């Protein structure tokens, strides 16, 4: 920038040498001031704890679906090492694939659910959800009897005093829609539906635009607004790449029907934790599974059928007097 100014000075036929020097000095000071101000502006970056990527290769790694098995093995080992570095715990990061001929479905008995939130807490532990800021995949809504409008529900009810008279409880989590709006809107294909109907997220691919969160009619998607905090001693070491491995700041996460368990033949953590037996899970393609039987025999419904998402999460009532603590009706399901 200095040179042309000197040229200009020549145009003035050198008559104002002193003025030029002064102007040069002024420009230098202004330039230095600008650089300093810019440096000061970007100074918070020095507190950045985590680099965006381990290496350039890491940064330009292909999408999960394009990785070969050997590439995946290296990646999963690297990720396990990262967890070890951060939490001091040895973990395995697996990648269980969908089982052919299986399509998962969930059925929830609203007559039984008593709003104790055992499912919520079990889910947080199993899936290594952030304790601070809190992220929970399941939201139980306390609904006054006689309405289905979720707006009348209470989200912050006290779980010590349930069930409350004149209320029923409606747990809501990802409905694993057959026609998921969240998958449709993702600009980078960071989320997709697998063959067994589970919609997963690649946490290493998500750009954090939160469009899927806007699109989801069930409020099932949750965003890591800050670096998630999990106490190391509470970390679940049995992890899978597309499910419960620790997430980074700035990405989306959601319920995945505990695929690290269910694809190995176990039941979801929320179901195992439920003391009332309100939760049923199984293969929709198997006519003899409990879920299939419930779908055939109970009065089932899906939430917000009108938005056309075709959920794989079904609700049902199984008795005429819906009082879960009423022992004489308990044995029906």
């Amino acid at each position, binding site marked *: 920038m200095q040179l042309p100014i000197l040229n200009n000075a020549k145009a003035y036929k050198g008559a104002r040498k002193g003025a030029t020097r002064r102007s040069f000095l002024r420009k230098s000071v202004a330039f230095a001031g600008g650089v300093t101000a810019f440096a000061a502006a970007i100074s918070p970056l020095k507190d950045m704890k985590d680099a965006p990527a381990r290496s350039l290769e890491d940064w330009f790694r292909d999408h999960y679906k394009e990785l070969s098995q050997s590439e995946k093995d290296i990646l999963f080992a690297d990720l396990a090492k990262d967890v070890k570095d951060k939490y001091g715990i040895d973990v395995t990061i697996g990648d269980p694939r969908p089982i052919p001929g299986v399509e998962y479905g969930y059925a929830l008995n609203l007559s039984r659910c008593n709003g104790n939130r055992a499912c919520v807490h079990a889910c947080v532990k199993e899936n290594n959800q952030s304790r601070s800021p809190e992220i929970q995949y399941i939201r139980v809504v306390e609904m006054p009897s006689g309405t289905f409008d979720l*707006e009348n529900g209470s989200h912050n009810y006290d779980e010590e005093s349930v069930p409350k008279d004149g209320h029923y409880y409606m747990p809501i989590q990802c409905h694993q829609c057959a026609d998921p709006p969240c998958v449709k809107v993702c600009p980078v294909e*960071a989320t997709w539906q697998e063959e067994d109907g589970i919609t997963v997220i690649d946490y290493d691919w998500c*750009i*954090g635009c939160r469009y899927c969160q806007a699109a989801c009619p069930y*409020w099932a998607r949750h965003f890591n607004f*800050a670096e998630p905090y999990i106490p190391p001693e509470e970390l679940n070491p049995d992890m899978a790449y597309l499910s419960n491995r620790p997430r980074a700041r700035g990405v989306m996460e959601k319920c995945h029907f505990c695929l690290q368990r269910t694809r190995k033949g176990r039941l979801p953590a929320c179901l195992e934790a439920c003391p009332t037996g309100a939760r049923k899970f199984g293969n929709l393609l198997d006519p003899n599974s409990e879920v299939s039987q419930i779908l055939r025999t109970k009065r089932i419904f899906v939430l917000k059928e009108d938005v056309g998402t075709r959920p794989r999460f079904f609700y049902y009532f199984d008795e005429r007097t819906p009082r879960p603590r009423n022992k004489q009706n308990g044995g029906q399901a």
Partner: protein
Amino acid sequence: MKQYLDFLWKCFRVSFVGDWRYHLWMFFLTAIALLGLNAWCTQLVNGLITTGMTDQVSWGLFIANFTFLVGMAAAAVMLVIPVYIYKNRELHDLVIFGELFAVAAIIMCMLFVTVDMGRPDRLHHMMMRFNFPMSLLTWDVIVLNVYLLLNLHICGYLIYCAYQRKMPAKWFYIPFVFVAIVWAISIHTVTAFLLVGLGGRPFWNQAIIAPRFIASAFAAGPAFIILTLIVIDKVTSYDVPKKAFTTLRNLILVAATINAFLLVSELFTEFYTDSSHLASTRYLWFGLHGKNALVPWIWTAVSFNSIALIILYLPISRIRGLLSIACVLLIIGVWIEKGMGLIVPAFTPTPIGELVEYFPTLNETLICLGIWAFGLLIYTICVRVTIPVLSGRLTVDSDVDRVRTLPDESNDSNETETETRKECSS
């Protein structure tokens, strides 16, 4: 090529030339932009927790400003239509000011989307895996970038021709002008569709949003251009033809009237039906369950828009002062209506009925102000360079010093932008 680089170099140097007001204005903008950059760095380090956004209201000020600015960018072509379709030659040069603003607005749009992302470091994933045509966001990326290129080409070419003292070759820009007109509608339509297509958000899921978007943008955009022209007319040697103001005022009148009509249609449908889909609308206009953060905003917007409309309908709007007041009111009104008033209520209550209110944080507000300042900085520089070129003082055979020694004509949009500033911060 060398000549073109020489042109850019001259432009760069001219952008530093001006009187104390110009320097003060530029210093002010730079300072705010740097504050914004600082706030963004803080956000990068700590995550979006530094914003007022939550899982419940997951889009806020950033996306609000984005939707507003897409409209402003689209509306820049409103000057083009009378010039090229109705052959209104007098306004020819003024088109360039509109298109330059489109460039600045699109750049601001892109910055607002970038700061809204949780992982801007992964932007390249868009290049590697692009969910087109399913995701409307990918459509938006395409239309905005093409619109930016179109406008850069049109005004870049016209300015460069003026600089070379050449007549622009019609075939090299007129076709692009017509494409840009259609494209302007498309950027706004696509942005509206981005919201309209979400079945889970009844507040957005209605066909009227896209037409309303366009109507309100075509009111606020020309209003901004009027303000810019008033300032250019006042502080520079450039003479803005009177006709420009009349034409633009008439455009605004039509657009603002249609916007008001569409609003009434929308409100009637919602409130007369009185269905459960009304929750967000009720929250916006009257508050819900004792929560009413947006109520004062939307009523401010409605009253500003109405006052502006009344002024514009009366002959007194020929008075410059009143005209600029009407324009400022209109811009603020539309900013609220299309920003906070359109984005936030869709999230309140959440799809499962939880009512959490959104309050932007200081850090978030600083980022917004920073982006506005940066955008206005770009616009000011563009206008600063364009005026001497168009008035023939900066040409291929003249030196920058000619601009320097002539009576100053810089300081394009001081007041205007202070005013828009207010509307951004409010």
